[in-house]
């Protein structure tokens, strides 16, 4: 049987942008992004729901695209832009429109899925915005309610029944 080794792991230097601030750290190759964000940088807004990529509670943005941070090796964050729920809030403490709309629409109950939901909605808005700016791209229509549902499939919620979360996302697209 293979013996478990302790304290002999090689550490790697990485640096990346965390919520627009440049950060550097030394990590094991096996460190996952979720643990790095929560345990090293102590940003606890990103939630550990399953550690196996099924629930979406730990969703963060890597260069604007959504990932389950529980399945993303932190070493691959090197040189990238990571955005967490803490990066969404405006610098004066006022809520980002996504957060404001989720609150107003009653889309938050226990809130444990909310960070991931908000980041997935942000990613969908990014995608939509980028598509709008591609020259010659003809995507003009707002996503349908069904498309929004499909996009949020990877984020589980046990409290709300999703309806008000989808209402909020739909409202955000309307606001543009």
């Amino acid at each position, binding site marked *: 049987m293979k013996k*478990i080794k*302790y*304290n002999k792991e090689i550490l790697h230097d990485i640096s990346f942008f965390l919520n627009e601030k440049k950060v550097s750290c030394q990590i094991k190759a096996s460190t996952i992004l979720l643990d790095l964000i929560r345990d090293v940088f102590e*940003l*606890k*807004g*990103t*939630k*550990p*729901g*399953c*550690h*196996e990529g*099924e*629930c979406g*509670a730990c969703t963060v943005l890597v260069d604007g695209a959504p990932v389950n941070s529980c399945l993303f090796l932190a070493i691959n964050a090197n040189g990238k832009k990571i955005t*967490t*729920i*803490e990066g*969404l*809030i405006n610098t004066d403490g006022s*809520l980002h429109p996504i*957060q404001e709309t*989720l*609150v*107003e629409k*009653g889309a*938050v*109950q*226990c*809130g*444990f*899925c*909310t*960070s991931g939901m*908000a980041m997935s909605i942000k990613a969908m808005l990014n995608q939509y915005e980028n598509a709008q700016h591609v020259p010659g791209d003809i995507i003009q229509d707002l996503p349908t309610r069904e498309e*929004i*549902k*499909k996009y*949020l*499939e*990877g*984020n*589980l*919620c*046990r*409290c*709300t*029944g*999703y*309806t*008000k*979360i*989808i209402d909020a996302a739909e409202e955000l697209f309307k606001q543009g």
Partner: protein
Amino acid sequence: MAKKLKVIGTPVPKQDANIRVTGKAVYGHDITLPNMLHGAILRTEHPSAIIQSIDLSEAKKLPGVVCIITADDVDVNNIGYKRDHPILKKGEANCTRDEIAAVAAETKEIAKQALELIKVKYKVRKGIYDANDALKDSAPQINKFISGKFENKNIAETFHYEHGNLEEAKKNSAHIVSRRFTLPRMTHACMATSNVTASFNKVDKKLLMYSSTQVPFLYQRDMAHALKMSPSDIRVIQPIIGGGFGSKLDIHPFEPICALLSMKTGRPVQILFSREEEFIASPIRQPMVIDLTAGVDKKGNFTFREINILKDNGAYTSWGATTPFVIMQSFSSLYKLKACKFNATAVYTNNVFAGSFRGYGNPQATFALERVIDLLADKIGMDKAEIRLLNANEKGEVTGQGLHFDTCGHKECLETVIKKSNYNKKVIAKQDARFKKGIGLASMLHVGGGAKIYRSDGCGTTLKIDPYGYCTIISGSNEIGQGSETVLAMMAAEELGIDLKKIKVINTDTDVKPWDVGVHASRTSFVAGNSLLGAIKILKEKLSKKASELMNSSHSEFDYENGQIVSVKSKDSIALDKVVREMHFSEPNELAIASFFYEPSSKFQDKNFKGNVSGSYAFASQAIEVEVDTYTGNVKVLDIYVAQDVGKVLNPLLLGGQIEGGLLQGVGYALTEELLMHEGKILNPNFHNYKMLTASDIPDIHFFPIETNDKEGPYGAKGVGEAPLIPTAAAIANAVCNALGVEFVELPLTPERVLKAISLSKINNNHHNLISL
């Protein structure tokens, strides 16, 4: 004279949503204390085995391991509703969850590695995984900690209830239907896994628990019993709770284990469940087999119900064993009924044990009852809506069990969903060859004003106003995401004329807050609301007296609005904060503070389970339309029409959230969710194989609140939280049966079960068949 309400009834967003939506809310997973250790639990490899030896030597050598405990290292009492559950197991394992040893280590990783180094020798036994097998004479006694007051050694609990003359009611029945229903295991799947942080102070011998419990004062008492401490030396602080749904009504072994690790080490210890551990070791909705025989006379009046329930109790007894208390209410009192005889038996097995789960047995009961009502309607050739309307409960009814329906929206709920869903047209709609549509109806009855299952079903409130005109509500009640803090703040804003932003709710610390029995039984708005209103009344008497003095008037009637106390007669006004300052700082000096303990008018039921157990009762009806793909067996829920007697809408936004969230849990129970077990082991302990519904699966929900204005409720409101999911599976099953002309006696209605039902019905020339897979 009813005053026009300004805040109550408006869609106020959840006051604590801001911290949750910005990642600033501190859940149990986010707590870090100085010098904190990480705990992990070794569970048995075998659901039934003799534990021959436990070798900790290798694990203890691992650097970073601070403490390992087994049953031999602790002096504790059992936990559980019947005190039949050892915290750490000694000598034998009886359930796949069984805690054999626990480790506290410097990091989570080291704690996990240590578990792998613990060597346990088991002698595997043949377990008992079927409640019927457990009742056989040859079966071994599974739980050794019970008093043995029942005729069979493996019976954990029994419930007997009856009213009316059953034999006469049988004779008066034109038709009788009997069916056996089998209900699955469903799990809460809270988005935050179970978590606890314990901090024992060796100097003053006090224990601090950061716990997600839903019942902090009962938790404090039970924890004290387990650890042989005084309850008051245990302080329970609830961090933000990531989902409850009833799962945190019992204390579970990991919580005293965490406390023990902290007591042994003198350092704070945290235990967080992995998702797999959550599926394996957190509670479930009771699986049960319900035998229901029911009759109807030739006019369509329900005559009697005879019910025998066999519940798989698992290896230990939790509050889940007491669900027949609620189940019998539906069987005895949902729709008018002349006679009822009810027996329920909970039997020990080597399976996992259940806990309480939103609805508390009622979804199971309602599924069986509402399915049989459809069958009775078919027997006498009566429309399924008509038979329900004929038998619906009425205002003023006192049921055979002694429940007083002082207000009752049952008939109005039924009428509403029948009309809004266009039920009468849809029930005979033309069918496509492949996609078949159907519509089903179901109603429900549930406690709506607390449930007196403890000596007190009360809640205390302390209320204060500070010299700046801000109000602090210190409430015994608990927030688990449902929005109770917001509803309480709205009541205070309404009554005191203070802006919502100036109201704070303190409700998370047993050292501070007054007693309350916990968040369950859809009771918080009703009981905590009434408690708050009682405290407000006392405080306003003090404030009004002072205001009258300051105005040099004899006026005693005042309105509270916009931060002012206004004389009704003269319209003179004085600022609320000024009145408070005058109370505090001028003689006779007095605090602007008041306390009130509200106890509902309900009665603790006698040993025959008769009596008015709740301050109010909630009713709801649902009409659900489905489309069944007869090629794949897939059931799509198209529209849900739901009318619910909520008494009074306190906050339409939060009410909508309770309805939608509850409904989707009900749809999951009906169609996809089942914790699969084989010989005591859980086969699908992850979100990939345990099918919780996603955003793509949601139906269109049409909600119609019915306001019956119950005089017992705050502003007329009743409890709302559990009701939405109770009739959902029943209505969906009725709809699928309507679509296909088949019959189901099991949940969930997976594609496999639906296809099998279709193929059997083809074989049998479309005769109605009993499908049991």
